[in-house]
Structure formats: structure tokens, C-alpha cells
């Protein structure tokens, strides 16, 4: 075990897989000489050279499309898009091509590629650089979607993603790149479709993704300390496939659910999970599930407005108490 920052854990995952498998390579804007806009690919160019660490022009749709073609022809590309926002320029290749090709050609072609992209707010990057599009990608059949909250999970999930034969949208959170955590040295793969129970509790289930899993942990401590409420915190780690069983088992125990995400409320991850929990475990619920989401606005630049638009532990505590009160009413 070693204590690493998330960006180092992600880099190690790529480097290890590139050493292990010649067909794995990295391409993206400024991933080589510049070492990555967020320094995630630091050192890869030195070790692997320009053949396997390729700086690309600013051509998102074509970078992803070239990844699709390379994947169809036997390689395992890791495409880094500089941010989640820029992935919108590549939606045609991600949805109409990467996700559709295995199905529309009836399994004759595979698209084993990883599309990495950081998102999320908190750095005053304003309306075009702070999106959370987990819900958008979650909706697309044919894609797998990963969204790690700890360095250890980030490494294990990325290694799994690289080895997987499906196209994976791998969403990272900009604010988590510098966060440290325990990371396995060896070949620890984190399987897709396996949630992690980050804290056990009997009173309320809080499901959080990306940075919001960490904020949910803070909220859980506050709930215990100040309100005598024991929250169970679950990080699904992947949204497609989704480990609903673990979430439902927790709800069966706590009878209350709160879902936390940074994205927009309408049609969001929380909306989806809330529907699933309600459909599948209605009888287990003592109160309606509560959603905590980012504000329904384009991320404002002003630090005060931005912070007000992002969920904090106070929002989660409040939602947890609301669902518990709802049960008593």
C-alpha cells in the first residue's frame, strides 16, 4: 500500500497497463509534452515515447473517432478529453459510434476503449468548464460509466476499464486529483458493478458519487455527532453497470434514502436512482427518497455563487433529516 494522490493513482494505472499490454496507448490534447492539463499523464511520454503517448490536435470528435477505429482494429486506446465539457464535441463518436457499433454490427466489432474526462465544479471555471455529465452518459446503452471517489478506486477501476472490451466513459473530478488515499501497489482490479459501502449505518442510506461520496462521508460524521443519526454511505463507483443490489439491501435496512450528486436535478443520477429505489423497494421505504443535486443553473463564476450552487454537507444533513422526519410525520 502507498499513499498517493488520485492523479498519481490514475497515472500508475495507465503505466502499469501499458507495460503489461503493448496494445494500450494514450492520446489526447496535451497529454504528452505538456504532461496533461491536470498532470495525470505526467511521465508517460518519457517512459513510453511518442508512439504510445500521442499529443493530438484540438479535434475532440476526431480524437474519439480515431480511438474507435483503433479499437476496432485491435488496439486499446485511452483517450483523454481535457474536460467533460469538451466531450460534448465528441458526442457523435461516443454515442452514435463507440456505443452503437458493437450492437448495430451484431457483435462483429468490439470497441475496447477508455474515454477519460474530468468534470465538476469548485475552481471558478465558470459555465463552460464545470459540468457534471454522469447522467448523460449513464443513459446510453453500450457504454460503461465509471466515477471514482478515492485514489484506490480510481486506480483499480481504470485498470479494469482498460482491460474491458466495451467503451468506457471514465469520469474524474477535478477537485479530487490532489486528494490523497491508500492505493494498492499490485494488480488490484476494482470490478465494475460493485458498489463500495464506505460507512456502515442503520438509520439512512446516503448514495454519493465522485466528490459527493466524500462530502457524504463528512455529512455522515456530522449526522452521528450532532443528531445521533447513523448513516450508511454507499459509493456505486460505476453507474453502468449499477450495483443496485447493494443499495437496495441498505435501504431494506435503513428504510430511508438520500442520493447526492453535483449534476443538474432534472433527469439526473439521483432522479434515476430514486426511481429505481422507489420501483424496487417501495415497501422498504418509510419516506420518499431525497435528492441532493447541483443547482439548476449553468455554473456561475463568482465564488460565492459557485459554492452556493454545489452541494455541501449541510445540504446532505438537511436531506437526511428531512427523510427521517418524513417517516415520523
Amino acid at each position, binding site marked *: 500500500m502507498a499513499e498517493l494522490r488520485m492523479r498519481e493513482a490514475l497515472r500508475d494505472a495507465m503505466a502499469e497497463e501499458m507495460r503489461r499490454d503493448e496494445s494500450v*496507448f494514450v492520446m489526447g490534447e496535451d497529454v504528452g509534452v505538456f504532461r496533461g492539463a491536470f498532470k495525470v499523464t505526467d511521465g508517460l511520454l518519457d517512459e513510453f515515447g511518442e*508512439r504510445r503517448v*500521442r499529443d*493530438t*490536435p484540438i*479535434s475532440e*470528435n*476526431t*480524437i*474519439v*473517432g*480515431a*480511438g*474507435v*477505429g*483503433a*479499437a*476496432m*482494429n*485491435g*488496439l486499446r*486506446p485511452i483517450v483523454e478529453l481535457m474536460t467533460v465539457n469538451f466531450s460534448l464535441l465528441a458526442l*457523435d*463518436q461516443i454515442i*452514435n*459510434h463507440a456505443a452503437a*457499433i*458493437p*450492437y*448495430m*454490427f*451484431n*457483435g*462483429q*466489432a*468490439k470497441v*475496447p476503449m477508455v474515454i477519460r474526462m474530468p468534470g465538476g465544479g469548485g475552481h471558478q471555471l465558470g459555465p463552460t468548464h464545470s459540468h457534471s455529465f454522469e447522467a448523460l452518459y449513464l443513459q446510453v*446503452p*453500450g457504454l*460503461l460509466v465509471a466515477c471514482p471517489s478515492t485514489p484506490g478506486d480510481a486506480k483499480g477501476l481504470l485498470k*479494469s476499464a482498460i482491460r*474491458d*472490451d*466495451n467503451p468506457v466513459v471514465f469520469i474524474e473530478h477535478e477537485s479530487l486529483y490532489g486528494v490523497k488515499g491508500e492505493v494498492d501497489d499490485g494488480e488490484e482490479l476494482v*470490478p*465494475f*458493478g*460493485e458498489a463500495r459501502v464506505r460507512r456502515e449505518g442503520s438509520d439512512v442510506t446516503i448514495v454519493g458519487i465522485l466528490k459527493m461520496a466524500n462530502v457524504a462521508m463528512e455529512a455522515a460524521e456530522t449526522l452521528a455527532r450532532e443528531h445521533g443519526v447513523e448513516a450508511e454511505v454507499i459509493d456505486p463507483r*460505476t453507474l*453502468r*453497470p*449499477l*450495483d*443496485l*443490489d447493494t443499495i*437496495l439491501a441498505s435501504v431494506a435496512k435503513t428504510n430511508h434514502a438520500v442520493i447526492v450528486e453535483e449534476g443538474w436535478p432534472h433527469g439526473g443520477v439521483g432522479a434515476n436512482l430514486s426511481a*429505481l429505489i422507489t420501483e*424496487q*423497494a417501495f415497501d422498504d421505504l418509510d419516506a420518499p427518497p431525497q435528492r441532493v443535486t447541483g443547482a439548476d443553473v449553468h455554473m456561475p463564476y463568482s465564488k460565492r455563487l459557485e459554492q452556493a450552487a454545489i452541494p455541501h454537507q449541510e445540504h446532505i444533513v438537511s436531506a437526511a433529516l428531512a427523510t427521517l422526519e418524513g417517516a415520523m410525520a
Partner: protein
Amino acid sequence: MPGLPDAATCYELLARMALIRRFEEEAGRQYQRAKAGGFLHLAIGEEATIVGTTSVMREEDFLIGTYRTHGHAIARGTDPNKVMAELFGRVDGTSGGRGGSMHIFDAERRFMGGYGIVGGNLPIAAGLALASQYKGEDAVTVCMFGDGASNAGNFGETMNLAALWALPVLFLVENNLYGMGTSIERHSAQTDLSKKAEGYGVPGTRIDGMDVIAVREAVAEGLRAAREEDRPTLIEVVTYRYRGHSAADPEVYREREEVEEWREKDPIESFGRRCVEAGVLGEREVGQAREAAEGTVRAAVEFADASPEPALDTMYESLYALTDYPGGWYAVDERSPEPHRGEQEADMPARARELAEAGAAYAEVEEEGERPNPALEGDAQDHTASRTGPDPADRGEEPARARETDAGEERED
């Protein structure tokens, strides 16, 4: 004018073009009969472009195209039976009925797909070529697209990337003078498409796409530059489709006389004549090459007709490449036989099947030959009378039902 190759090659070129022509005519007829659904884009008139290209490709080379690629697959050696079955949406189709006319694919013959999104295949071509180069293989990727795609952002992005990375790819723009119903003068500031990639470092040439030998020689040189020098080039092949953009095209944007003028340059007629005049083939062989297509295409229709509809429980197959993991739910959909859990689990598979059957039953509601066209609901127009090109009725067949035209078409090359 370049010289003719040997007799066997000439015969093969002629037979292959004739097969594609006959296949496309029949596909149009089957569409009229509503055996084939969706959109149908025929390449009648463009046969020399297709066959000239594939005739000089190696087996190991990749070909990737647009949504007008029945002929491209057949030229690569795909069984016409399987292409027709795909048009019919049957299990023996090239994509098992999942893709339809716009999404023909044959991995074995390295035909890497028809693509329904204009310009969507360009970046993928760059990726195929990148992987061949990365692996140290000799394969060249040939990327064919229409004049309309040269206006898509992918065109510039891909040309730049291909030149920047010196990829073994050959771009071939099938300029049939119209992007759907918009003529090239009205859709492209630069109408000499061979010049359109020069600024990106991809030089171009312009070729007569009605001359199979001219196409063949230009493509051979493009393949050589890509294979031996990692030098991508662009070939503009000027060609013409006699039929509309799709089978549901009223063709209000061009005059019948223009179509007739192009028919004078018909690639099959002209090549047959040339072979006879040069003494390479006899009249009888030319006739034979064309007649052989008749039986092949009839057999393809019979094959497609006999092929079963896809089973409903295959709905979710090939959506994912399944491995030991991931576990969990890939899909949440009441029509899936698999994902339901909890108290419903015991009942769901049976119920899911019932619902799938109920949904599938709607496929039978519309009588054959009378399918309403959603694009024209409530619209009394019927442009079929103005359609150019041979009407099946002219060939002494039963009158085609008036399958209405499709005003709300998608965009095209």
C-alpha cells in the same frame, strides 16, 4: 485514356458492376414492396467508383463507407444474400437485422461499415489506419464518403490528423454532385473537392467516376502512396446517382434531362462497349457478365425472404461484450428478460416475453405494401409520379404500389 487490363480482369470488373446495378434495382423494387424498410440509398450510376476502388485493394486492406454501401460490401466479396437479408431485417443479414441498409458490415472481408452519420466514418478511418501503422502491418484503410461530408467538421479534423500523423489512409470522395437535394454549387464554396484538403497537407486528384479504369488507376496510386510512403491522399471521383438520394426522394431539385445526360455516360454500358471495341471481350461475354447478375440477385431475394425474423429474446445480444465482470445491471428495461430483481423476479421473464410479443405484434399491423409514412402523415403529396429512373412497371413487372415519398429525410452526402 488508360489502356484496358486483361480479359479476365475486364470481365470481372464488368460482372461486378452489373451485379451491383442489378442488386440495387432489385433492392429498390423490394423497398417498393415494403420488404425492405427504413431509408434506402441506392448507388445506381456509381458502380465504377465502387468497383474501380475495390478491384485494386488487397484482402488485408480496410474499406469504410457511408450509408450507400450495399455495393461496396458486395464489391468486397460479401455475399449478396446476406446484404439483401439485412435490408429485409432478417437474422441472416450482415448485421443480423440490427443495422439495416445504412449499416452493412463484414468484418471478415474488412468492410468496416456503412455509417448513417454523414462524415462519421472519417475519424474511424484514421483510427483504423493508426492501428495498422502501430502494429507494423501493411494494410491501408480506404475511406469513402460523399461530397456533402466534405463540409462536416470531421473532414477537416481528419485530414489534419491523417497528414500530421502520416497515416496509411486513402480518402475517396464520391462526388455525385448533390448532398441529399442540395447541389454542390449550393453547398460547397470550393466545388473542386480535390483541392479541399490541400491546406491540411492532403493533396488531391480529380477522376472521372464513370470510368472504372480511371478510378482503378488513381486508387492504385493512392494505395501505393499510403502503403509505401504513409502518405494520405484524396481522390475526388466525379460520379452520379440516377436514383434519388434515398428511395423516397421526390427529386424536385434536378431536371430529368440532367439525369438522362449522365445516363449517356453509364459506367457499365460504356465499359462494355469499350471492351468490345478493343477486342478484349466479345459481345457474348459482355451479355453473360450482365446476365449472371440476374440469377444471383433472384437467389438473394429468395434467401432473404426465407431467412427468419430475429427472435425477440435476442434483443439485448451484442449490446455489450460480456466478461466475467461487470456484474450488476447493464440495462434496466422492462422488455429485457434479464434484469428484474426483487419480488418481481420470479414473474418478470415470462411477463417480459409477453410484453415483447405484444410489442412485436405491431410489426404485423400495417399490411404489406400499405405502410404509412410517418414523414408524410396528414400530407397528401405523392411525388412518386415525378420519380426518374426505371420504374419497375416499365420492366413488365407488376405495378409497384405507390410508396409515398419521404419529405422529412435525413441529411446526406
